[in-house]
């Protein structure tokens, strides 16, 4: 369960990114394709070379969804309802992959924030990404 402190830390952290959110989205995806090659199987139609327009475009989409989620942490299920439908009925991404993206997003954030990605922030973000993953998978069966 996200505590009030967790929510505050997440909002503050996201606020510190100063417009780099889209870059982080693309970086996280790029890292995921490198570190977890099976994730590429969901993108046979993409140019997966680093810096590709498609990775940047998709990274932007992912980050926009996370920004929405961060603004609606008290009501994630409703805020992400459309995305939840999409993942359940259309994309059918195996939920294990949500953890891989979460890990790579956290590594990307840590490379940028350094010491500011403190243990407390790390814990809050990990919990948050776990909650987002649960919502995305909640209509699977």
């Amino acid at each position, binding site marked *: 369960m996200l505590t009030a402190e967790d929510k505050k830390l997440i909002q503050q952290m996201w606020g510190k990114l100063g417009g780099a959110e889209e870059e982080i989205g693309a*970086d996280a995806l*790029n*890292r995921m394709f*490198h*570190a*977890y090659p099976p994730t590429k199987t969901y993108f046979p139609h993409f140019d997966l070379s*680093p810096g590709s327009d498609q990775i940047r475009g998709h990274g932007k989409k992912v980050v926009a969804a996370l920004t929405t989620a961060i603004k609606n942490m008290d009501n994630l299920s409703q805020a992400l309802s459309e995305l939840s439908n999409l993942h359940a009925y259309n994309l059918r991404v195996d939920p294990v992959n949500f953890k891989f993206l979460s*890990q*790579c997003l*956290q*590594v*990307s954030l*840590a*490379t*940028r*924030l*350094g*010491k500011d*990605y403190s*243990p*407390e922030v*790390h*814990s809050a973000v*990990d919990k948050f990404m776990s909650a987002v993953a649960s919502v995305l998978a909640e209509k699977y069966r």
Partner: protein
Amino acid sequence: MVHWSAEEKQLITSVWAKVSVEECGAEALARWVLLIVYPWTQRFFTKFGDMSNSGNVIGNGNVVNHGRRVLTSFGDAATNLDNIKKSFASLSKLHCKKLHVDPKNFRLLGDILMVVLASHFGKDFTPACQAAWQKLVCVVAHALAHEYH
């Protein structure tokens, strides 16, 4: 036997050469305690003193020492890539028979170590670096779980 490309070996050893075992080890273990272990697995750390809040965990002398020990073992793997399963056999038996640690925790600690390295090395912890190290932590986790029965 795990196959390591020349590039992977180079990425692993070059990062390892710059790691502060003291700092990163303590930090990784502290984060693991906070994220994954806290508060329900304090049973692993009854000898470590009060671990009931982050202030008592980070900077806890026992956590620092133990973190150093854990990361030194990782270093043994990093500098001995072609022989990890064998060199971790006795540690594996220890974690199973004496410490009773659920092997799931090895992967989790490995993931946390990635985040610690990322926060220390910034942009130098490139996607290729992360991929090589993610593979290493996976191999180490597997080796540590290998002797479980």
